[in-house]
Structures are given as structure tokens and as C-alpha cells.
């Protein structure tokens, strides 16, 4: 056995996919024109595979705040929150996040990935149990592994299965953290949160929800699924990212438990990394203000999502079970998914192409994620193109 054997196997397996132009993994973007358009392969392309749900990446308020922060505080902090990287902006953003959720405590991390990694590994230890939805994001799985706690999966969005596994834990439920997501990134469906909160309460367990894809998307003020389901105060920890609806980079956790603040001293992904740059923090703060008052943006986003979802459903695409800004078409084979993705790029549309095991049910996905910044004309172009290409997504038996 050689150190590089696994790379040889990987390349042999993926070579045909890696040879495709433009690249399907890490597609090179040459220039950004707007939140919804970019140059790819020398052509102007409609972006329908970003996580820019509210379209705030070019919002004048966010640009101005970022420019000002660079001018006044420099390009980076060059240190950890625990050392020299704890600026007023970081602390103010924590205060603003706590206020936004009506919680007592908030912690800002350097990325959304690290928010899950740092919170989960900081909270749970070897004697604890982490009960996670099977469709949870890799950052949650990695945080669980780093914690050293016992990790148990329950069936995706299955409250009965969650209840069954809590029952099996007996007297250990008091040291159990249940982990779910507001909107699941692969199929775009939402956790049945109210029912799950009732179950975790009845067993005396704790709950963490990752609102990465639902911040700014769900709830009157955009808190996420916790607000839409009316359970903000009944979920113990809420994590999320700045890199989607807030158009920046960074992550957060809010809670009413005082232990969240103490966790700063125990969480390696919080301690051993540089803090977010001043411009990222400044644009996230400006975006959070726009997000809170962004009912008009959520309305437009949901109009866009409803229109494309119903169109694709009518055309026979096999979609996730729930309408939302993440709209995934499930294909049967890699070849079928590639054919659809390539045909979309040829028609000037970029979407994400996702293969198992990242895609659930052992099937590849062509995933769209929509934005409030998509114009009605752009949505109609997406609809007409997916209509023209519907035959590429038909089950092979038909």
C-alpha cells in the first residue's frame, strides 16, 4: 500500500467527469456581473445554483459597509477571537444576532462549517449522545466525529424514528443533543420541527437546528424554520451561516444557555483559527439589517420558487417533496445527470450537479437554488429551458 493509492483509485473513477469543460466540480467563474449572472467559459451565464437567496451580494449597503471596514480596520484580523482577532465588529454582530433571535447569547465563527464543527464539538463530549437526522450536512457529521460523543442517526424527517431512538437511550436522554436542519440542502425539504420539538422535550433531550439554508428564507423576520414553526424559544441552539442569505462568510450560534459563552474556551474550531475579516463582518451586519426588514425579498424569492417548482413538476421532473428555493431534480444515472447539466450550460444556465453519497437515495441530483434577485424574465427562461429539456430527465424505462 502506498500513500497515494487512494488518489489513483479516485482519479480512475472520476477521470471522465474531471475532463468535462466547463468543469462540473469547481466550475471556474471568470467574472461576476450581478447576483444572478456571471461569465463562465467566456459566456454570460444565468446563475441558478448559488445560495444567494436574498440576492444581497451586491446590495449597496453591504458594499459600502465592507469598503468602510477595509479602509478603517484593514484586510484581515491576523488572529483568533481568543487572541488578537476579537474586534468591536465581531462582538457587535454577536449582540445583533442575539437580539435578532431574542436569545441571551451568541457566538460568531469564521465559517458556517466551523459554526457546526465548533458548536457540536464544544458542547458534546465522550459521555454524550448526538442524535442526528440522516440527511444532515457534512459539517454536522464532522462536528459529531470531532466531539468523540456517541453518534446515532435517525431516519430523515421521521419523528417516529426519532422518538424510538430516544426511547432506546433510556436514562441517557438528558445528555443527548438532537440535531436537525431548517431546510435540507440536497432536496430542499424542511424538518417537521414542531413535532420534533415536542418529542425532544418529552424525553428531556436538547436540540440544535442548523438554519444555514433557511435564514432569511423562512419566518416573518427571516429567523428561519424556528420562526415559521413558532418554536424559537424551544430550540436550545440555533446555528447558521453568513455565506448564503447574508452574502458574506462566517457562521453563528445563538442560545439562551449560558454554557454557549463558556464553550468559547472549549471549542477548538473557535479557538484555533483566525476570526472573520472586518469587511466580512461589516457586510454581514449590513445584510442582517436588510434581512430582518426583507419581507419583500422573501415574497419575491417564494414567488420564484413556486413558479419554477410547479413548472418542473408539471414537466415530470422528480423533485424533492416540498417547494422551496432549493429545487432538486433527481436523475437515475450519472450519464443522465451529466446530459441535463451540460444541456443547461449550453443554454446559458448554471446549476449544481451532485452525485451520491452527497446526494441521497443513491441518485444524482441537478440542483437549482433560486434568489430574490432573479427577475421574472430569468425565471421564465429557466422554466422554458427545463421544459425543453424535460425528456433528458425521464426515467430510463419510459
Amino acid at each position, binding site marked *: 500500500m502506498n500513500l497515494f493509492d487512494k488518489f489513483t483509485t479516485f482519479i480512475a473513477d472520476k477521470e471522465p467527469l474531471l475532463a468535462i469543460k466547463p468543469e462540473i466540480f469547481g466550475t471556474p467563474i471568470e467574472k461576476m456581473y450581478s447576483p444572478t449572472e456571471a461569465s463562465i467559459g467566456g459566456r454570460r451565464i444565468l446563475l441558478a445554483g448559488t445560495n444567494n437567496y436574498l440576492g444581497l451580494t451586491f446590495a449597496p449597503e453591504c458594499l459600502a459597509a465592507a469598503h468602510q471596514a477595509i479602509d478603517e480596520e484593514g484586510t484581515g484580523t491576523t488572529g483568533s477571537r481568543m487572541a488578537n482577532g476579537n474586534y468591536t465588529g465581531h462582538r457587535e454582530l454577536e449582540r445583533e444576532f442575539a437580539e435578532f433571535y431574542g436569545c441571551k447569547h451568541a457566538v460568531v465563527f469564521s465559517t458556517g462549517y466551523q459554526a457546526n464543527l465548533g458548536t457540536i464539538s464544544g458542547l458534546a463530549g465522550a459521555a454524550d449522545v448526538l442524535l442526528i437526522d440522516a440527511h444532515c450536512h457534512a459539517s454536522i457529521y464532522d462536528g459529531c466525529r470531532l466531539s468523540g460523543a456517541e453518534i446515532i442517526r435517525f*431516519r430523515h424527517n421521521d419523528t417516529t424514528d426519532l422518538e424510538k431512538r430516544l426511547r*432506546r*437511550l433510556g436514562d441517557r436522554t438528558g445528555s443527548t443533543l438532537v440535531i436537525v436542519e431548517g431546510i435540507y440542502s440536497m432536496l430542499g425539504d424542511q424538518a417537521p420541527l414542531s413535532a420534533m420539538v415536542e418529542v425532544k422535550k418529552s424525553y428531556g433531550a436538547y436540540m440544535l437546528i442548523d438554519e444555514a439554508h433557511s435564514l432569511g428564507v423562512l419566518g416573518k423576520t427571516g429567523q428561519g424554520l424556528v420562526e415559521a414553526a413558532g418554536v424559537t424559544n424551544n430550540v436550545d441552539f440555533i446555528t447558521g451561516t453568513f455565506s448564503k442569505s447574508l452574502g458574506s462568510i462566517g457562521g453563528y450560534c445563538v442560545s439562551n444557555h449560558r454554557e454557549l459563552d463558556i464553550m468559547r474556551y472549549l471549542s477548538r474550531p473557535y479557538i484555533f483559527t483566525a476570526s472573520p475579516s472586518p469587511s466580512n463582518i461589516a457586510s454581514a451586519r449590513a445584510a442582517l439589517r436588510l434581512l430582518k426588514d426583507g419581507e419583500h425579498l422573501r415574497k419575491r424569492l417564494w414567488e420564484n420558487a413556486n413558479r419554477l417548482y410547479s413548472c418542473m413538476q408539471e414537466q415530470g421532473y422528480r423533485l424533492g417533496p416540498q417547494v422551496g428555493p432549493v429545487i432538486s431534480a433527481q436523475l437515475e444515472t450519472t450519464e443522465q445527470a451529466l446530459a441535463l447539466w451540460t444541456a443547461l450550460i449550453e443554454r446559458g444556465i448554471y446549476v449544481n450537479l451532485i452525485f451520491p453519497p452527497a446526494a441521497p437515495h443513491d441518485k444524482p441530483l441537478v440542483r437549482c437554488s433560486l434568489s430574490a434577485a432573479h427577475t421574472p424574465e430569468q425565471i421564465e427562461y429557466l422554466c422554458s429551458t427545463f421544459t425543453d429539456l424535460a425528456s433528458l430527465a425521464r426515467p430510463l424505462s419510459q
Partner: protein
Amino acid sequence: MTDNYENTLQRICKHLERIADPGAIIRADTNLVDEFALDSVKILDLIMEIEDEFDISIPLNLMADVQLVSDLARMIERIESEK
């Protein structure tokens, strides 16, 4: 080997046969990693069915030690005995 172990083994094999290639024979020394690609979502979902069969939860952390069908049977026996 105890009767209980043999019984556990048989119950596991019955589940595994459902996802194995037609005609494949599943035995105690069948390697789960080679035969079923243990890290795939498919096998993890199958494990959930096996968990229900025995009314237990198998921590993901322990799955790293499972190579053979017999490893899985012994682990299930151990978890059941701790109930």
C-alpha cells in the same frame, strides 16, 4: 458460538441478502466493506432496518470496527446485552 449468536447472524444475513447481488451467499466471514461498500448511504440505511429488527441503535462510531458480518453480529449481541 452460542445459539443466540447463530440466531443473530441468521437475522442479519436475511437483511443483507436483500441488497446483495442475486445468488450471492452471505456468511459470517463475508466482508461488508468489499461486498457492500460499508461507507455508502445504502448500507447505512440497511443498518437502520437491522437496528429496528433488534430494537437497538448502533452508534456510527462503532461501525468503523465492523468489517465482517460476524463483527456486526458480535456488536449487536454486545449492545443487546447492555440493554
